[in-house]
């Protein structure tokens, strides 16, 4: 029996006795990560419409000054993100600019691995950054799971054996099938079998603490991402806690004819996040939830001849939540100082972003898990 299993079996009272008085700090928040799979084009998400270099780099794809949703005199959001404007006006939406890392890798697969494990560009780590964080600072006993991955095959930042993570499409279906999981006590030397046994145990432990979805008056958008957002809201309403939820919106690898598909993706994202905000307000969880996006990279500053953009580097990301300090954060990469490959030079290390998320969500000193000393400050004072 491992330590977590042991702890899970104890009553809350005996645990208090074990761990001493509860630490006096802000209540633990729910972190909802949204992966923008494929590499979102940051330049056409937070648009630097006043910069002449932007028009020069994007003769076909540039979003015009009059079309962008103006945030200040120089920048505006892509017009498809209109549904995020209420959160912006309420000061609950932060746009963190210039996120990236030194010596960027332009492979989808390697770069998302770097983001998922919060590694350096030349470092190979096995476990996701959230898994490492939960291994070190476990979720409180009684939680249904450390992490829940909704509607994706890969566990991303929650991969690895150090955290209790389940994947599901929706709680009803998960619970309907969970009765088929078996409690096989044994461990195995065969690593594939050991993996299956571990997943089976995690299913059983979470199934005891998940409750079928509640209904919301908030309407969720149609389509897979809307369905995933609805599931996230149901999980947020679960009586037993969950520390982190990961959602995925795919299709951002826009090498050709980008304008239409990118607009549709951002619309899905904006409408989904707006619905999430509505639903979490409805159940009173909005003040203690932080929603944050990430992606393997942004896209090349210069558009290509196919009306699209190739793989790039730094990009902008969204952080949204009831206590999030809204506004533009970080510094936008300079469009007239591209690197040798024609790519944006990052201004904020993504590990400082992750550190900020850990600190904001769980109050954990984050430095070691993600390898940075100075996490970004993401909450209002």
């Amino acid at each position: 029996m491992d330590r977590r299993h042991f702890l899970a079996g104890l009553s809350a009272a005996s645990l208090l006795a074990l761990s001493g008085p509860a630490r006096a700090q802000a209540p633990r928040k729910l972190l909802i990560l949204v992966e923008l799979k494929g590499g979102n084009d940051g330049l056409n998400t937070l648009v630097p419409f006043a910069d002449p270099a932007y028009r020069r780099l994007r003769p076909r794809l540039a979003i015009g000054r009059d079309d962008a949703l103006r945030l200040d005199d120089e920048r505006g959001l892509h017009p498809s993100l209109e549904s995020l404007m209420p959160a912006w006006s309420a000061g609950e939406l932060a746009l963190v600019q210039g996120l990236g890392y030194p010596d960027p890798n332009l492979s989808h697969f390697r770069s998302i691995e770097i983001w998922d494990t919060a590694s350096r560009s030349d470092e190979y780590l096995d476990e996701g950054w959230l898994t490492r964080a939960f291994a070190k600072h476990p979720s409180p006993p009684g939680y249904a799971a450390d992490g829940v991955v909704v509607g994706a095959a890969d566990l991303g930042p929650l991969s690895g054996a150090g955290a209790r993570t389940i994947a599901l499409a929706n709680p009803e279906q998960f619970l309907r099938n969970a009765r088929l999981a078996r409690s096989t006590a044994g461990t195995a030397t065969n690593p594939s079998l050991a993996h299956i046994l571990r997943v089976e145990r995690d299913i059983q432990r979470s199934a005891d603490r998940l409750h079928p979805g509640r209904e919301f008056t908030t309407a969720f958008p149609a389509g897979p991402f809307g369905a995933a957002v609805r599931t996230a809201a149901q999980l947020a309403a679960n009586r037993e806690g969950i520390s982190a939820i990961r959602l995925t919106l795919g299709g951002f690898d826009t090498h050709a004819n980008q304008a239409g598909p990118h607009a549709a993706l951002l619309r899905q994202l904006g409408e989904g996040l707006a619905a999430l905000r509505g639903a979490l307000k409805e159940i009173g969880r909005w003040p203690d939830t932080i929603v944050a996006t990430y992606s393997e990279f942004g896209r090349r500053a210069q558009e290509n001849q196919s009306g699209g953009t190739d793989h790039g580097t730094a990009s902008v990301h969204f952080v949204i939540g009831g206590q999030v300090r809204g506004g533009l954060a970080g510094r936008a990469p300079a469009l007239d100082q591209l690197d040798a490959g024609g790519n944006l030079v990052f201004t904020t290390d993504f590990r400082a972003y992750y550190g900020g998320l850990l600190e904001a969500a769980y109050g954990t000193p984050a430095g070691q898990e993600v390898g940075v000393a100075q996490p970004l400050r993401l909450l209002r004072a």
Partner: protein
Amino acid sequence: MKPILGAAFAALILATGPARAAPLGEDGARHLLVRTGFGATAAEIARLAPLEREAAVDGILRATGTKATLAPPAWVDEPFFPFHKFAALPAEERMAEQRRNAERAFELREWWLRERLATPSPLAERMTLFWHNHFATGQQKVRSGQLMYRQNALLRREALGNFGELLREVSRDPAMLVYLDNAGSRKQAPNENFAREVMELFTLGEGKYAERDIREAARAFTGWSIDRDTGEYRYRPFIHDGGMNTVLGRTGRLGGEDVLEILLARPETATFVTRKLWREFVSPAPDEREVERLGGVLRDSRYSVKPLLRALFLSEAFWSSANRGTLIKSPVDLVVGTMHTFGIRPLDLRPAATASALLGQNLFAPPNVKGWPGGEAWINSATLLGRKQLIDRVFRGNDGMSEVAATQAPANAMAAEPQARLRRVMDRGLASYAVDWDRFLRDVGGGDAQGDRIARLVLAVPPGETPVSGAAGPELVRQLVADPAFQLR
């Protein structure tokens, strides 16, 4: 563990590793069959068991063909529907065309599943799927059943043929040119998508080239396009960048064909492909020294695939007891292997295709150009429960169907879930996926030792949970297929 099963599996473990000149025995025969094909029946095992390793392996390699045995859907010979005409359609007709494409993708999946069950050479189909995963191409972007079919026929033709030839042909394959955007890549601003993936995923592997090599190679591949009306490959000299470029240290007026030869000349290419084949056939953790040795076999044969597979199947690692049952079944392995092993032959294969998709392997629609990651990534709580649900449906027989209806969530709660419709298709369709128990048990035979024989047929390693004592026949099978060990091959 029930003593009788324990003894059987102990014998299995002791029996591995003896001289190559001994007969395979039933356990060895089963191992070779499930690794090179999809599942294994008692009759197939009995045929192979008396053979020695070399004879058995050579027999399997000799049997591979280059064409499917079953006729594809009739529409594959219809003319290609040009993309520019699609864009010009009124919205309603465009929707209809999209629906037709989605339907055709399903018909291709059903045809391919049926071929796996019908073929005399499951290895040829396993390798065709291996290359589909290696040169991953998805119909969502290609949007043409004809182009997807033509690529599939190419992958099958060279499945055990020549990797160099396959690489050259795939690079000119219309579905690939569309999927990785090369069809529209022009000299003024080349599209790097194909140039990057051909190095990272098809030949060298990540980190074995520089960003500059990709940019230069992208220039070399400009002009490799398709004919907009026929969908055939077409070289367009006017958009090709004919200037000097340097790729991996070689300089000249390089065309795409030169870049491919440069990639094939690098030793990394052979080891990269060999390592991936090891994970497909031997174990999740390649032995790097063996990969080097086997990579040499591939290079020495100028990328001929069969000599490499022969060396791989005759390697000690392939037969090692430590590597038995260490591969996690893919959804296709699980679905097709189960149908084959238990003789499940329904008229309609759409529920099987749907099941594979729901479990994470939607053929002709890989998640991205890297293909399905495989291995442990096949199993998370969602997919493991999906597998258990599928097994439960198939093996429980008709007596459980009322329970399915009762546990079905109300329609409105499921309406927002896009997979719900597919799930219902699968649930309803699986009612006709029945095991012919009389025939299965007759084929297994074995009298008093039948329990043993069943366990050794169904599982690659001993069950994690001892079957309830006294369980026999269908009840024993139900317990074994519910065991975690059933997910392994």
